[in-house]
């Protein structure tokens, strides 16, 4: 009797687990296959693109498409601009936010908690309400067609990054800092020598979030960078799309250069995919932190 019962439980878990696998695979199809479809289109010749049913594995794969696509527009220039508007602001996002976060986490000053609750409010505020006035401000400062609208605000720290870093610092033991303070170390020394090295993983998280937000941004570059030689990769890609498919959006397009468009799309998305594969745990963990605290 007991033997049978156990066996049936085993059988049940076996079946439910198999079912889970099958479902996970079936649901996975719409998540992965479109990406593979883009990759496959990127490796086709122009004449293989508009074929029904689609060719999945082009033979031979046209790896030259990537080079050809890269040279359709000055994508090298766009890449440099993307690197500038991503990595210079990232320095501010990471280090200025860390400095501010330290003040909120460890130092006592009057009004600190009130200021921090203001910070929490700005975190959930939609950015658009400040976008038009900031645009007017920057255009009055003649910052249109410069990288300053991206760089300068970043060096005032980001609310969300400050919040993440503060949470992390609150969980650090403060024994080392106390000891250093008793030994007569200044706050700056403690912050640089003791706190920053301990913050490694948290700084990496902020760097990744900052990279993703800035590398993928479309709206701000579109508004601030109009000259062709200042455009970022995202603007370049959107420009190439409208060029390759004709204006008026992407619906129903037929284009002789669709394979090149897919090739450049693959190249531009690739850094994000690589960073995701390399640092998955940061994505998962910090999505959760940000979710539960809101």
């Amino acid at each position, binding site marked *: 009797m007991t033997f049978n019962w156990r066996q049936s439980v085993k059988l049940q878990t076996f079946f439910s687990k198999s079912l889970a696998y099958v479902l996970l695979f079936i649901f996975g199809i719409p998540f992965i296959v479109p990406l593979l479809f883009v990759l496959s289109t990127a490796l086709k010749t122009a004449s293989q693109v508009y074929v029904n049913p689609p060719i999945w594995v082009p033979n031979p794969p046209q790896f030259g498409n990537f080079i050809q696509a890269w040279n359709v527009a000055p994508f090298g220039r766009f890449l440099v601009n993307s690197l500038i508007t991503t990595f210079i602001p990232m320095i501010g996002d990471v280090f200025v936010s860390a400095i*501010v976060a330290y003040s909120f986490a460890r*130092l006592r000053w009057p009004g600190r908690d009130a200021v921090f609750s203001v910070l929490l409010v700005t975190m959930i505020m939609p950015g658009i309400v400040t976008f038009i006035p900031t645009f007017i401000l920057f255009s009055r400062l003649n910052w249109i067609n410069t990288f300053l609208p991206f760089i300068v605000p970043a060096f005032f720290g980001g609310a969300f990054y400050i919040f993440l870093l503060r949470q992390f610092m609150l969980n650090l033991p403060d024994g080392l800092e106390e000891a250093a303070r008793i030994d007569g170390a200044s706050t700056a020394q403690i912050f640089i020598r003791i706190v920053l090295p301990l913050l490694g993983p948290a700084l990496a998280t902020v760097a990744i979030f900052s990279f993703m937000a800035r590398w993928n941004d479309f709206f701000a570059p579109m508004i601030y960078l109009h000259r062709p030689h200042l455009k970022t990769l995202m603007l370049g890609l959107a420009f190439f799309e409208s060029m390759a498919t004709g204006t008026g959006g*992407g*619906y129903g397009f037929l284009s002789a250069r669709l394979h090149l468009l897919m090739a450049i799309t693959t190249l531009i998305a690739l850094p994000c995919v690589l960073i995701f594969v390399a640092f998955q745990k940061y994505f998962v963990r910090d999505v*959760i932190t940000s979710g539960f605290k809101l």
Partner: protein
Amino acid sequence: MTIEPKHTAGIGTAVQPKATAQVRKRRSGKRRSGSLRRREAWTGVLMALPWMLGFLLFTAGPMLFGLYAGMTRWDMISPPRWVGFQNFIRMFSGDDRHFYRSIGVTFRYVLMSAPLHVVLGFILASLLNMKITGTNFFRSMYYLPSILPVVASAVMWSWVFNPDFGLLNHGLSMLGIRGPGWLSSPDWALPAMVIMNLHYIGPSMIILLAGLQRVPQELYEASQLDGANRWQILRHITFPMLSPVVFFIIITNINGSFQTFTQAFLMTNGGPRYATYFYMLHLYNEAWGAFRMGYASALAWVLFLIIVAFLAIHFRLGKLWVYQESD
């Protein structure tokens, strides 16, 4: 009743180290002289200063200025002209035909997108919570599209939605269904955007998964002992425990769709026949298309108030029916 003593004992031991730490802190605070404390305060303010200045320069200042600009007519060439509440009257009286239309599009989008995010996210999270090998692989697979640049995703989906050679209609034809024109069809363009948005389900799924893993295992065991069936466990334990997470996802979805811009701008530019004319698209066209900065500022403030209203509902009403741990 029998569980209680155990429970409090657990809490007692867990809290103790924290309490001693607090006592220690208080003591060391007392030992510190006034000048040291004053110096700490100065250093603290100094280190927080960048953000406080940034808040004044790039958040508070612009917000107030935006409120002022919302009361003017302003093309950025001639100086702004004060018009009072005229911009808001134009908006709500229906003089601006696109205002209600864009709000309608945005809400229709939320009404389709949010439930799908919750239901599909819950199914995926439950499957990932079954402790089978390869969970990490599947989780990454579902999360991967969420990290793609929106511009790249827009290009990809335009191609997938292509009526004649796109992947979606090819898949449907294999099932014997003749697919619609998707982005070129006024009826199907918005559902197409909803389908595209499902690719960004990763964060919802992860938060739901974390929510599932936070449900105390004892609750399941106790209810199984009491003879509850699967549906009853789902209905009376899992759903109530997940309600804050679900609520959060809905609010995030509302927030997100009111700020949906890039994909609509690139894929349909609001068309066909305004079927995908999102609120942000309207705002963008007013500000950077027609250079009606005053009116666009008013639109931005209304958008701000709409989102604040939903957040207020999130925080106030949420407490009434959402189950929350009291910690």
